[in-house]
């Protein structure tokens, strides 16, 4: 056995308080808040943190990435590892160390032996196995299911040791699974379906839930990492974005997921701190490569050059966000500047390519998801495409109907989507995103694409990974079947009295160290 490039880490006896004392550990560099927002004083004990968010919690989807769960999942449950918000590298939580074999096809994880569920039962390797088995159950809708399906086996090779084997390299993608698959209690797992029993090992215990309205969580005094500072967390679900923004004026301490326009009202307000978190969303424009005339690559590339992404950032996102052409972190190994900015705004080049494709004046029928800022992005895209001599006609589709089409891989010739899961590895995302996976609505899955994906997923070590990612990215950009228009970070607002917020790479909130001044 040898250590991977990701490395081996042992954090015995980690306590969340250590984080605030500047010690190494779980949250040392998960903190993404700017210096001005960090706690400067000793944390205070007690108080109830009140959070407002637009999506309800979903205990029945605890193993899947869901917007409503971002604030609570990692406070009631623990994962084996989390991805660092700055480096993207895994950090231990319930895991203490991990090792990969020379060929990367065998992976051993060792876990803590001092952890109990909120029910009082001790956690061991069998709970990890149960959790991974649940990831495989289709009804649990985990985005990590395809990865776990790849594994030949996963078994407990000791009370506190799990061994995974596969025909493909297991790391680094395994850490995406270990982040999302929080460890669930096999004895009460059925209770997650209606939220009657929500039992994890995390710093807060589930207290109650009024579906669609509110949820409450209370301090776990016996938490293995030390009791949290807060007595309780209360989440209010407020679906109207303006009403949610207004809630920060006294009703709540933290608003999760402000709209870009609503953040503007707090500029210069000393009583509200607005900040961007990690994670967030991609806003891609997909093209069906089998639907004439879009089967012409030059036309697809022209659409990429025709769109003014900077204008989208400025007018739709009020300056927040990134114009990056790739589906993964812009600082991922292998993501060069040339790749990240491949499709810069160039209407002349777009016209040239349209002429080359003989597509002047063609209709561009587009299906647009009626979600958040996407219809506003469409307005700019429509304007850009008209400028280069195309005739876009858009249809705004309700989210529920659009998602059906997306799952079926049928969204028409051109479509505008939205995807979360920012922060996971590129090797995971290429098979997890509906826009990129087999059966995608672009109907793009040539053998070369599969080969390059396989090469990326088999890459061991940073150098190989970077080379494979560069090659895949160049191929995807050249084929122009899906244009990432914008990546937008989540925007949050908090009261100055709230300190010690910790976010991981995917944007999940960790409140074990949070406190109210």
């Amino acid at each position: 056995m040898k250590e991977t490039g990701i490395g081996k880490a042992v954090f015995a006896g980690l306590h969340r308080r250590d984080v605030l004392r500047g010690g190494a550990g779980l949250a040392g560099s998960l903190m993404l808040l700017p210096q001005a927002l960090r706690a400067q004083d000793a944390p205070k004990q007690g108080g109830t943190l009140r959070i407002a968010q637009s999506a309800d919690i979903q205990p029945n989807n605890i193993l899947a990435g869901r917007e409503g769960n971002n604030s609570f999942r990692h406070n009631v449950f623990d994962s084996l590892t989390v991805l660092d918000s700055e480096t993207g590298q895994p950090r231990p939580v319930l895991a203490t160390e991990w090792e990969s074999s020379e060929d990367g096809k065998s992976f051993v994880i060792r876990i803590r032996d001092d952890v109990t569920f909120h029910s009082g039962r001790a956690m061991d390797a069998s709970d990890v196995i149960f959790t991974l088995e649940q990831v495989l159950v289709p009804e649990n809708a985990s985005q990590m299911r395809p990865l776990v399906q790849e594994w030949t086996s996963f078994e407990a090779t000791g009370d506190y040791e799990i061994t995974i084997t596969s025909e493909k390299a297991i790391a680094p993608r395994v850490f995406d699974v270990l982040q999302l698959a929080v460890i669930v209690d096999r004895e009460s797992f059925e209770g997650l379906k209606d939220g009657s029993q929500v039992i994890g090992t995390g710093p807060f215990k589930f207290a109650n839930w009024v579906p669609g309205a509110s949820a409450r969580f209370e301090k776990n005094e016996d938490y293995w990492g030390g009791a949290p500072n807060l007595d309780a967390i209360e989440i209010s679900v407020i679906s109207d974005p303006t009403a949610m923004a207004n809630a920060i004026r006294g009703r709540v301490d933290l608003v999760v997921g402000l709209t870009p326009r609503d953040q503007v009202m707090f500029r210069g307000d000393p009583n509200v701190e607005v900040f961007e978190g990690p994670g967030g969303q991609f806003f891609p424009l997909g093209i069906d490569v089998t639907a004439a005339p879009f089967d012409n690559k030059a036309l697809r590339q022209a659409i990429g050059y025709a769109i003014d992404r900077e204008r989208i950032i400025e007018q739709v996102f009020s300056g927040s966000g990134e114009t990056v052409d790739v589906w993964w972190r812009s600082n991922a190994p292998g993501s060069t500047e040339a790749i990240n900015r491949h499709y810069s705004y160039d209407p002349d080049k777009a016209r040239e390519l349209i002429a080359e494709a003989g597509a002047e004046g063609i209709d561009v029928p587009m299906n647009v998801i009626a979600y958040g800022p996407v219809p506003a992005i469409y307005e700019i895209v429509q304007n850009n495409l008209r400028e280069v001599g195309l005739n876009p006609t858009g249809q705004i589709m309700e989210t529920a109907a659009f998602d059906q089409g997306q799952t079926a891989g049928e969204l028409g010739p051109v479509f505008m989507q939205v995807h979360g899961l920012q922060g996971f590895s590129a090797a995971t995302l290429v098979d997890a995103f509906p826009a990129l996976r087999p059966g995608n609505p672009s109907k793009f899955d040539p053998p070369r694409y599969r080969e390059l994906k396989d090469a990326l997923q088999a890459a061991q070590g940073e150098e190989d990974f970077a080379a494979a990612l560069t090659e895949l990215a160049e191929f995807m950009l050249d084929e122009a079947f899906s244009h990432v228009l914008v990546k937008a970070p989540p925007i949050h607002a908090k009261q100055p009295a709230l300190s010690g917020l910790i976010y991981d790479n995917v944007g999940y909130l960790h409140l074990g160290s949070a406190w109210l001044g």
Partner: protein
Amino acid sequence: MLGFLAKRLPSVVLMLLVTAVIAFFLPRLGGGDPAQVIAGPDATLEQVQAVREQMGLDRPMIVQFGDWLGNVMTGDLGTSLISNRPVAQLIGARLSSTLELAIAASLLMIVLGIGLGILAGSARKGPGRAMIDSSLSVLLATPPHVTGLILILVLGISWQLLPVSGEVSVLDDPLTGLTYLIMPAFALALPQAAMIARLIAARMAQVRQEEFVDLAIAKGVPRRRIVISHILRNSLGTAVIATGIRIGEILAGAVVIEAIFARQGLGMFAVTSISSRDYEVVQIIVLFAVVIAVVVHFISEILLAALDPRIRLDA
């Protein structure tokens, strides 16, 4: 009274049956799929199908309808497809919030509507009349959500007199509860009050031309008594019927007002249930709304009979 109710029962049952059919099938015609909502936007076809089977949504539609109707008739309102909680429990948790808002708004509507109606229906002329008429027109034309936002801006953000978001039950803390209720109740009540005022004013003007009013004046009946006992009493029937209809409007308007003021009532619940395709919840809310409309209509008719001796319920 019993005869009146017995006579109306068959048509009410028929209406509820038709409503049940519409409530069941209409949401399903709107596209989308609760199994997709639960499985999530990133789900594969296999995952969505597995969820669909688990929820019983793969059964023939008519079988699902029969099961649902049978359950409702035995008092089982079903289970939410999204949260897996009993629908009755979910509605129960939201009912008090909407009832508080609807009762407060209805009381305001009746008091303001009758008050403004008498004011507008009195026999004044010139600028005073023009001012009342134009005020009523502005109130009538301003939708509740605009009024709500103006109130938030002025009373909540600029002057910081009232909370702009959330709710506290008046049963738990009457004073605080009222501070949360004032703005949304006013926003809901004002346009409806203006409508009632208009009706009362128009009817009073009509009644004032009647011969019995001339007779009362000729007999030397005091002016105040003429207005209250003769003109107003004979004008209120229209207002009573209109008030019943307006209460329905208030319940409909609560959907938007609950969203603006972040109240967790039935209106908000209906909207989120529709967008998440939680058919089981939507069906019961639609039925529930129709039952409320029927009850309010009955009460209006009974009140009208009490006000106007010429009307007999059993006739």
